[in-house]
């Protein structure tokens, strides 16, 4: 991003909040000329990067709110460091001109000479488009949008007149970057509080920031891959059981003529190494192919990633292959041992591949693990740290999987009842077959179980959050309309919007609620910003023994909770440092109960009036006068919002629904999980069914001889598959609901109080698992009809 930059001058003062939020103190524009005169400096350019939203020709803002790529306003001028090159027109000059990045111009359908509306902290304004610029060799960096102004306009429109974020420096090559940085630093007094970074340093810092933002993504991905590996190993186990079965006679014969157990086991393990190796390499190549495709896709969607291509490190390659092989070999271990154990006599017997009995120890181990897990969860509920929760859940999961073969027969029989009733003798046989080898049934159902449990748990969590959100806003939001901005800490609605709305006829009050990043006791904290004069009767934060009007410029409201934890009663004082490094001493004027939206600290907008800081509203709440017509007011509001350019006007109920809807991102995750487990479950069931069909050739032959039609053979296999799949789903739902309840309970401090069973999802899962069963049975059922009747009757 800063590849042509040799130095970067900025303030040392920064307020850093959670989730990578930070606001650095701006530096005076006058410093630019000072840096320009340092020997060794070839060129300088002031840098500003602040929130600005370009409104397209059709009136819709470009870029996305919330988690999408950011929308920037910045400085565009001739500069040797050349971040921007003009492809059409020229750089802007003067307060009425703007240049756009190439992609934004294209998406906004703008050409040079057009009038462009841009929204920033100070409000919205119209400019004349004088140039279109490209960023290095990409049309726009990473999907972000850029509106470029000359320095003075950028400072005044995006931030504060006379201040910039940083100064970009290009050296003349007479000294190293380090030396240049030192020379620039030497120009300044420590009281100026500025620092100079080399080009390499600022590049690294930026990359680290991006890496951090991506790390959450990484955690989700590795969770996916662990789940995939876990359930994959069940499938591998079954595959090797099949090949052990198919080669049983052959192996028995080898044993009869003198091969040792170890030789036979080892042959199979060697095979697993090869399979693991080939599988891992194929998987990795597939993955690389997929990410190239993804990059191409993003490019196609206009999101250019200015990086040096796809990065595949040696450690990624080694890890993938090593882990792939280890998992495969471990999964093949038991089947290989069993293959070695085959008695030489088995060469003369028909196939009986796995012992079906379930040991008593298994029951005890399973029960003990579940009891232990429940005990830990109980302790967590009783007050033990929530970090123990994971362990408890793991034990319950593990115990259930160990116990699976014990539970499978009764549950399978129960689930098979409709099949037996509906389908007569074929249903009866399917039901019996599904519990014939409980170990295998349980193992086959395990991927379904794990997937379903996770999906159910997350759905339960999502449903509970939705319910909660609904309750909160219904109770606290007293107004009629809201203008909403999905902010994730960057940008938002201009505070001037609420002021304008208050002048509309029929509006009793319009009040903006926003955020401000400050430092308290050395730590970055977000304050909630309100306007005490308009919030009354519109939004209720649950003040206890205080009124909104008590909040003056030197006051602060605290949540009861935070006040207690930090020992800050009413009347005590709190020192805050603003992002422009100025300090305020605030007196606690009152406490409130509803911290769901208001957070822990609330200040008045007056508190930082005139300070050189950023503050946006994430929502504007509007109450109409009692006798005003809702439709008319809404129309007037809509016009004002359209004129402003961004934000979404919603009725109270629409707003509540939309807030609850943000939980849908969580649901997106669920569908990812669901898809993953569906695929693995289908593969697992197919393999197990093939194994069963293979083992039961004679039986199928006999049935065909005495008059079973091919259709009936298929029905039997299909229902067996469906019962197995449903078994996994039912177990998974039970576990998942329990898990969801536990998580919701553990999160009660975060304000989750009501647990909700995700009924819709549960029904959907049951239907899905039925479909999975039917789909998985297609191939094995077809194979079953191909059984040669005579061959299976003649072989003894």
């Amino acid at each position: 991003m800063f590849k042509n930059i040799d130095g970067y001058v900025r303030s040392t003062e920064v307020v850093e909040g959670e989730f990578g939020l930070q606001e650095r103190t701006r530096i005076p524009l006058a410093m630019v000329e000072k840096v320009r005169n340092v020997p060794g400096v070839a060129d300088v350019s002031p840098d500003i990067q602040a929130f600005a939203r370009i409104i397209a020709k059709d009136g819709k803002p470009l870029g996305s709110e919330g988690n999408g790529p950011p929308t920037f306003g910045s400085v565009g001028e001739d500069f040797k460091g050349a971040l921007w090159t003009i492809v059409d027109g020229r750089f802007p000059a003067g307060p009425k001109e703007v240049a756009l990045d190439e992609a934004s111009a294209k998406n906004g359908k703008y050409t040079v000479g057009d009038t462009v509306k841009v929204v920033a902290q100070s409000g919205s304004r119209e400019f004349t488009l004088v140039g279109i610029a490209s960023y290095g060799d990409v049309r726009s960096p990473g999907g972000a949008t850029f509106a470029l102004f000359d320095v003075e306009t950028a400072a005044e429109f995006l931030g504060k007149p006379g201040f910039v974020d940083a100064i970009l420096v290009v050296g003349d090559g007479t000294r190293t970057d380090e030396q240049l940085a030192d020379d620039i630093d030497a120009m300044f007094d420590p009281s100026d509080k500025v620092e100079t970074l080399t080009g390499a340093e600022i590049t690294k810092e930026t990359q680290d920031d991006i890496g951090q933002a991506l790390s959450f993504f990484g955690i989700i991905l590795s969770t996916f891959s662990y789940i995939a590996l876990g359930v994959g190993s069940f499938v591998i186990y079954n595959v090797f059981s099949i090949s052990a079965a198919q080669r049983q006679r052959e192996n028995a014969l080898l044993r009869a003529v003198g091969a040792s157990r170890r030789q036979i086991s080892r042959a199979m393990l060697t095979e697993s190494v090869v399979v693991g190796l080939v599988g891992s390499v194929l998987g990795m190549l597939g993955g690389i192919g997929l990410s190239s495709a993804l990059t191409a896709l993003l490019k196609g969607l206009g999101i250019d990633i200015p990086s040096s291509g796809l990065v595949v490190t040696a450690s990624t390659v080694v890890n993938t292959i090593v882990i792939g092989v280890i998992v495969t070999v471990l999964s093949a271990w038991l089947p290989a041992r069993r293959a070695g154990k085959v008695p030489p006599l088995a060469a003369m017997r028909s196939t009986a591949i796995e012992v079906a009995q379930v040991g008593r120890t298994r029951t005890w181990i399973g029960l003990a693990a579940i009891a232990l897990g429940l005990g830990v969860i109980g302790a967590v509920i009783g007050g033990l740290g929530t970090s123990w929760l994971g362990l408890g859940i793991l034990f319950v999961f593990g115990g259930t999987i160990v116990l699976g073969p014990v539970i499978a027969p009764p549950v399978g029989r129960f689930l098979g009842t409709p099949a037996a009733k509906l389908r007569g003798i074929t249903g009866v046989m399917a039901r019996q077959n599904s519990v014939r080898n409980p170990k295998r049934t349980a193992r086959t159902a395990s991927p379904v179980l794990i997937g379903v449990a996770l999906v159910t748990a997350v759905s339960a969590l999502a449903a509970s959050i939705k319910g909660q959100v609904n309750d909160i806003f219904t109770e606290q939001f007293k107004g009629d309309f809201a203008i909403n901005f999905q902010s994730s800490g960057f940008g938002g609605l201009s505070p001037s919007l609420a002021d304008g709305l208050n002048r509309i006829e029929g509006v009793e009050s319009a009040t903006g609620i926003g955020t401000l990043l400050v430092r308290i006791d050395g730590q970055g904290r977000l304050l909630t910003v309100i306007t005490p004069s308009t919030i009354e009767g519109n939004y209720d934060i649950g003040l206890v023994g205080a009124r909104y009007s008590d909040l003056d410029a030197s006051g602060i409201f605290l949540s009861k909770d935070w006040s207690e934890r930090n020992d800050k009663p009413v009347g005590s004082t709190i020192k805050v440092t603003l992002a422009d490094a100025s300090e305020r001493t605030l007196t606690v004027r009152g406490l409130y109960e509803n911290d769901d939206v208001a957070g822990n600290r609330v200040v008045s907008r007056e508190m930082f009036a005139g300070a050189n800081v950023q503050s946006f509203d994430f929502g504007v709440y509007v109450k109409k006068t009692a006798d005003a017509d809702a439709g008319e007011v809404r129309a007037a509001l809509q016009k004002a919002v359209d004129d402003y350019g961004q934000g979404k006007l919603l009725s109270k109920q629409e707003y509540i629904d939309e807030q609850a809807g943000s939980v849908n991102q969580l649901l997106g995750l669920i569908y990812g999980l669901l898809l993953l487990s569906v695929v693995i479950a289908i593969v697992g069931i197919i393999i197990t069914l093939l194994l069963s069909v293979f083992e039961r050739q004679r039986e199928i032959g006999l049935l065909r001889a005495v008059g079973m039609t091919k259709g009936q053979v298929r029905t039997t296999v299909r229902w067996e598959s469906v019962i197995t799949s449903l078994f996994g789903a039912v177990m998974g739902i039970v576990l998942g609901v329990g898990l969801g309840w536990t998580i919701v309970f553990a999160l009660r401090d975060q304000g989750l109080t009501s647990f909700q069973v995700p009924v819709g999802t549960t029904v959907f899962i049951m239907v899905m698992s039925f479909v999975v069963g039917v789909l998985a049975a297609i191939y094995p059922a077809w194979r079953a009809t191909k059984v040669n009747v005579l061959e299976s009757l003649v072989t003894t």
Partner: protein
Amino acid sequence: MNSPVSTVAASAVNLSKIYGSGDSEVRALDNVSVDFATGEFTAIMGPSGSGKSTLMHCIAGLDELTSGSALIDGEDLSTMSDKELTTLRREKIGFIFQSFNLVPTLTAEENILLPLLLGNTEPNKAWVDRVIDTVHLRNRLSHRPSELSGGQQQRVAVARALASEPHIIFADEPTGNLDSTTGTEILTFMRKAVDELGQTIVMVTHDPVAASYSDRIVFLADGHVVDEMRDPTPERVLDRMKNLGN
């Protein structure tokens, strides 16, 4: 039961069955023509590899013919689809195999009723009761095959073959895996089924004693019908076998 006008339950007409082709060609049945009369107990005998099982499979619709035709109740099997053959086996034919006759997951009763259940046909209650009593299985009905002795399992198989009142029953060495006492028991039941219930049975066997329970023996050698015998006794059968062997 030798009625003067005996009708034909099943027959083979110029039936040939060739396995493989070229050098490895095996002519398992060579232009065989034979009739099995209704209400008769017929035994098929012959040296190993003479084509006994093959003949049975072809007439019972379990195997495809190379040429000629097989008829059950006057219907030509060679023109039937797989589905029609399946229905035919279920409704008109009963089977008793040497071993592995029963579905291990089903009870004795379900096994007995299997062809009826598969065909969704209502069992003839009185008949089924009679069959079950004939083979003395009344108190074993809810048992699974693994809980029954070898003889009991074969009796269940006999009962299954009878339960659907088939046109004809085919049995391939039904006593081959049993000791002589149990074998005798099974053979007695089969005889009874013919005498008392009017069944038609075709049984493949190596055992002269078993064959002596039949009304008529058809001798096969090298895929040809070489001889026949009526009202056999073990001694006469043994005698004939010796001649065939030579």
